[in-house]
């Protein structure tokens, strides 16, 4: 990521596909690991860890959606609902059967994967906007079902209180403990996605995205791979929902409504479709930008406005600036923050001899 080589030395396909293009990359990963496992939790206060925690959960969801939208070229407006499927599955298992998180978490993911495949069936016949509407229907049907079936929702309030995750007797109830809990899963999700995309399945996804008829001709069973993509993507969404459930201590479908599906789509479009790093950038951008803008406006604005006026000014300005920045970034680099990052990197790769 931060390293550079002095030329192109890749002579085999294996070298091209390697996770670590250069030996120094291993060191980069080691430094990142040291940073996030040791330094960050020691240095940062609870508040900043809580922001990181929210980013981590968003990364898992964004990665999942990117597998479907960015890598396979299908679209889904139902990811918020898939998250709620995971959330309620885990909550019911945790409360009714008293299962620990390491069982409820995969169970939530698998249930979401199953529902995701069902919602994804229309993708076999339709594409683009039509598929968007079909998955939108999936979102609304799932919301309605949870709202109206007390067996799933646990009563009229449609919310189930979940005990904090328990790891060998250690209750994960503070932001710093939850930080490690979430860090583990986000690393797992990132590594899994990186490897998935190097595998036969990942290549098939990309082939389906780029030209599905051509993909079929070269022997890819597009039905199977489209549904597989929905399944894997929804699995991530389900896990993301379970993580939210454990993080907040409650499963509540009102926190997974259509707007959430759209937020996640925004993340991967801003970050960069079809890239793991892009999903991470997008999740960071969408989560962090409102917070940073608010901090900036609070400090700058307090020189001009009184406290009570300021609140209104901040909200309005933040919304406008957030929208303008998204447009700005997408005009500067339509392929998202990931591409922007690569441009910066390529610039420094030959710096200061750019000609």
């Amino acid at each position: 990521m931060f390293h550079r080589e002095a030329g192109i030395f890749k002579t085999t396909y294996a070298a091209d596909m390697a996770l670590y293009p250069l030996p120094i990359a291993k060191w980069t990963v080691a430094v990142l690991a040291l940073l996030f496992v040791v330094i960050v939790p020691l240095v940062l206060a609870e508040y900043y860890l809580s922001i990181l925690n929210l980013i981590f959960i968003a990364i898992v969801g964004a990665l999942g959606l990117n597998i479907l939208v960015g890598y396979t070229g299908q679209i889904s407006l139902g990811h918020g609902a898939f998250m709620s499927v995971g959330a309620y599955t885990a909550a019911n298992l945790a409360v009714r059967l008293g299962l620990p998180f390491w069982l409820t978490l995969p169970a939530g993911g698998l249930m979401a994967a199953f529902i995701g495949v069902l919602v994804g069936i229309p993708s076999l016949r339709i594409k683009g906007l039509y598929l968007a509407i079909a998955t939108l229907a999936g979102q609304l049907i799932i919301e309605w079902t949870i709202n109206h079936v007390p067996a799933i929702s646990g009563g009229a309030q449609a919310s189930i209180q979940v005990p904090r995750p328990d790891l060998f007797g250690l209750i994960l109830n503070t932001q710093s403990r939850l930080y490690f809990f979430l860090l583990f899963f986000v690393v797992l999700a990132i590594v899994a996605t990186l490897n998935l995309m190097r595998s036969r399945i990942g290549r098939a996804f990309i082939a389906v995205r780029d030209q599905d008829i051509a993909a079929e001709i070269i022997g890819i069973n597009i039905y199977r791979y489209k549904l597989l993509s929905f399944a894997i993507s929804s699995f991530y969404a389900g896990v993301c929902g379970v993580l939210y459930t454990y993080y907040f201590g409650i499963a509540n479908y009102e926190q997974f409504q259509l707007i959430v599906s759209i937020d996640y789509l925004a993340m991967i479009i801003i970050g960069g479709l079809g890239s793991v790093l892009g999903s991470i950038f997008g999740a960071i951008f969408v989560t962090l930008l409102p917070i940073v803008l608010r901090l900036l406006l609070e400090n700058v604005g307090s020189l001009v406005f009184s406290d009570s006026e300021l609140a209104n000014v901040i909200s309005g300005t933040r919304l406008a600036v957030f929208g303008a920045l998204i447009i700005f970034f997408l005009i500067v680099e339509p392929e998202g923050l990931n591409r922007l990052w690569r441009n910066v990197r390529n610039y420094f790769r030959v710096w200061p001899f750019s000609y």
Partner: protein
Amino acid sequence: MLRSVRSWLGIAAAFGTLSFGMGGAFAQQKQVVFGLQCDRTGPTATVGTALCPGYHDYIDLVNSKGGVEGYKIKVIEVDNEYKVPPAMEAHERFKKEGALIDGLYGTPQTQALTKKLEEDKMPGTSPGFGTASAADGKRFPYLFPIAASYWSQAGAAIEFAKEKLGTLKGKKIAYLFYDNPAGKEPLPIFEDLSKSEGFELRTFAVPAPGVEMGAQVLDITSRYRPDFVVTHLFGRAPSVSIKELKGKGFPLSKVVAFVWGSAEADILAAGGYALAEGYNTLQFAGVGKDFPVLKDIVAMYKAEGKAPPKEMDSTVYYNRGVMVAAIHVEALRNAIKAKGGAMPTPDDVRKGMEQIKGFTLGGLVPPLTITPTDHEGGGWCEVWTVKGGKLVKTKDWYQGFRQVIEKQIAADAKS
């Protein structure tokens, strides 16, 4: 592209220095911090943009009179856009800034933070949000609904209908509600009361976003023909319900709306006061400008040489903001007094909250009695009716069927 990278780095560096350079400019003696969450840009912005200024204005008023027992209050407001993750960030921010209380905003947000409040031992208020069972202070020690819950509103609505109709025996009541958890929450109270009071109940659900309810209203007015209609709607839906019921010829004097369908904005959106004549609304804070505290706020603005804010005209929501602020301040006052003038902790403010009694702010706040077991303070409501171009009080603070609601709270605690 390559050239722009260079200017990019410049911009990034400039922003970086700006954000680090400012800030940390607020250290003052004898200051306490209150956290307030709000929604000024999300789906409930119409409420937040009038409610939160009310909160700020009351705190400013208290500060301008020297603060609470010598302590000035600083409010940190975070706009959570009615989303859950920003609500968590807001709570952590309040904690970091040493806030004594978390003014919650939004039902899913309240749900998501209930556990966190308990773990952090910080009191949170959720007026008109969250679950009705949160009134139970033993189950939810750090959550304070402080205003009438949907269960209490259901009791109050039926009590009002009973008063209007004389008796409820053999009468028909229609319940028109938004099809979400909040809309369904009062159903057990209605069912319980329909048995004990002998009226017939039928429910009519309006699906989100609640702007299309022609079929339900037609069903109510021409097929079911109830003696009374109770509505529980949000956002644009209340104004649509007024228009539809009026259009189908149902007398609005036989309609009572829950607290989120009861603002001036709803009446204006429905087509004005003349059209909505007779429409009854439940309120958990006083309505109108005829309160000493509001006159003080206007005087405060005058003294600063400013015009009072236009949000004051939206008295239903603005006054609710004033009420929430006033209760926060009273809890703080109790906490400081209990500590003999020392700086209170959030847990002290919780105890202060549980001592609030007989504090009415000239009628703007209901005669709440918050106790360690009852965090709702009694579930008081007022009824205000559209009459001659304005909202007029038709029923003073009352508790509808309190024992039924208490029974329900106790039953919910067992389940």
